[in-house]
């Protein structure tokens, strides 16, 4: 089943945008770019807005730009019984009732079929720059004020800087003094996402890339992920039972098992 696509409503001065969940992320990004804005969604090739929200993977720049889970302001979804439900609200700040939108992010569509969303948007900074080198990622994080990304494969660190020209220049100078050099872009991501704690547990010999500050690591081969706490599993089961008692929504998919 495919959700509706297209931009429904966008006033740049509100810095929010209402789009159909079936809208390709590339189309969303192009619409926002025209107004000098963007959303903190990963621009996964071919992916849709609803798709990336359901999967819940952060954009590579989440360290500086903010997390995917904070991008969603309102979600309109079809519940298991066919009723249309609105979660959250249209404004950038809202604590009216329980924060159901957060539970939808990363739920793999197992709680409802999301049809339309309102996202928070941000200004697109004028200048950006990738650098890479054999630097200590902790040192980079300590010394640089607000890098938008720090990636680490065990030997090389990649950093992304963005902002006003003079600030990017001075931060790039600082990064170069720590051993980084300008580069074209980030390395390709290994396919499997794991919590960084699973990687730190050791015993992994393949290729990996840690997305510093977000808790995610990407690995070339699947590795064992610590079994979630029994109470966490029980909460997932109870949420599923409350929202989809007949098991109709994306059957067989377990958000806890997703990578």
């Amino acid at each position, binding site marked *: 089943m495919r959700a509706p696509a297209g931009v429904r409503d966008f006033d740049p*001065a*509100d*810095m*929010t945008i209402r789009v159909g969940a079936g809208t390709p992320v590339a189309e969303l990004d192009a619409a926002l770019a025209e107004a000098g*804005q963007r959303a903190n969604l990963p621009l996964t090739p071919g992916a849709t807005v609803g798709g990336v929200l359901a999967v*819940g993977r*952060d954009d590579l720049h989440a360290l500086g730009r*903010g*997390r995917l*889970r904070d991008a969603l302001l309102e979600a309109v979804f079809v*519940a298991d019984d066919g009723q249309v*439900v*609105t*979660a959250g609200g*249209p*404004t*950038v*700040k*809202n*604590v009216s*009732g*329980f*924060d*159901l*939108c*957060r*539970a939808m*992010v*990363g*739920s793999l569509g197992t*709680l409802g079929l999301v049809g339309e969303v309102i996202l928070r948007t*941000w*200004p*697109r900074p004028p200048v950006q720059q990738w650098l890479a080198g054999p630097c200590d990622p*902790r040192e980079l*994080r300590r010394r640089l*004020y*607000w890098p938008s990304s720090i990636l680490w494969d065990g030997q090389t660190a990649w950093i992304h800087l963005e*902002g*006003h020209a*003079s*600030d990017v220049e*001075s931060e790039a100078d600082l990064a170069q003094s720590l051993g980084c050099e300008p580069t074209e872009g980030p390395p390709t991501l290994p396919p499997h996402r794991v*919590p*960084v*704690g699973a990687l730190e547990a050791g015993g992994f010999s393949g290729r990996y890339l840690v997305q510093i*500050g977000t*808790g*995610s690591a990407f690995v070339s081969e699947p590795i064992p992920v610590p079994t*979630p706490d029994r109470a*966490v599993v029980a*909460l*997932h089961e*109870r949420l599923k039972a*409350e*929202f989809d008692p007949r098991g109709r929504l994306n059957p067989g998919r377990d*958000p*806890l098992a*997703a*990578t």
Partner: protein
Amino acid sequence: MKFRKADPLVEDLRRVLPLDRIRVAPLERSLMGRDASIFEGGQAGPVCFPIDTGEVQGCVDTARRHGRAVVPRGAGTGLAGGAVPLEEPVVVVTTKMNRLLSVDADSRVAWVQPGMINLDLSRATAPYGLHFAPDPSSQQVCSLGGNVGTNAGGPHCLAHGVTSAHVLAVEVVLMSGEAVVLGDPDGWAPGMDLRGAYVGSEGMMGITTAIAVRLTPDPPAVQTLLLAFDSVDAAAQTVSAVIADGIVPAAIEMMDNNIIRAVEAYVGAGFPTDAAAVVIVEVDGLPGGVAEEADRVVELATARGASVRRAVDEQERALLWKGRKSAFGAIARIKPNYYLHDTVVPRTRLAEVMNRVYEIVEEHDLQVMNVFHAGDGNLHPMLLFDRREPGIMPRVHAAGAAIIEASLAVGGVLSGEHGIGMEKRDFMPLMFSEADLDAQARLRRAFDPGGMANPSKVLPTGASCADVNALDKVPDGVWG
């Protein structure tokens, strides 16, 4: 109800807490009967002061065995009646759980207990050049557990987000008595974002016993501007123009003439008392961007008739913020009581809704002062009154309801940062359909199937049948 020494609930609580940390005297229970809202007449049962997670579990287990609801409470600074106990629940106060458990400056993560005061955390992490970004006006007294409960905001949440964006993990005692960690201090736990679903649940899903917070680096450069306008419209238009220009300042706060005059008489921050409105804009970050953005803000403001004052040093900056943050103290000089509202409207509709607020207040023959987070569109009209004046309360409530309706009419929401609690519970159907409310009730049931955690708040009766002691309406005497 008077608790005797032989009360079986109190007897059992004494098995999990020492005598001096269970209070049953009428005076102490009545102190816990209200929060900082206008609600009076809440009824606390035994009041417990645990010092660790195990003791909280003991309190919850004991309450459950006796079929008694549990109301968590931090510093009691909530403005929506969320912590007001109804029908003598066990009240679990976290103020003695106020320790900083750990700081990892490299990873910028601190574990804190829920009773720690918001500002104490930023003070403790200042030596590392780090702070906790959400800064509610009550930050000198409010607790971090309460911030999690309401998903609190503050002036500096415009660029960096509200509490939820700064909570990496929470340890929660569920009503089953189990302690569970939601989220992960590293930043991501596989599965649904239970952490995010829990933050802002107003004590209705469990009791927060520890919080892993994300710390924010102190900005290398800051510029604070005071913009004074001849009209509220020009001030509001400037706010929209700044955002539309692609600038997200650290804070944009607006104060209208009524509050400017009150604050000046109180602290003398140097605000122009003849201005219709002032806007405080703070930009922070690296020096180049800060200088460029501050200049641009000045340009946009002067084009709309503003006179501009730039804080030249930290002392002047602190004075401007003192003016802003003293607003609530200042109004006590004018009327003994105030009712602080909290709605959000799309940023582009600010001027229109503020004008409507002035009309509403005039229709009900009340006084209003506006001091609020303009950059987020988060309005805070303060209705001033003297509750001794006969017939005043119905007017205050009618004006409040009209402000809520005016905000929703332009696509706004019920609350931006104070929460729903009891205050706006019965307004929820104005914003949400029955199906929407049922979905929220399901989320709550997944965490608290028996409805034992802070019952009868947030969701109007009918959205959930599971609440113990569910009340058809707010009990007599609770509305102040």
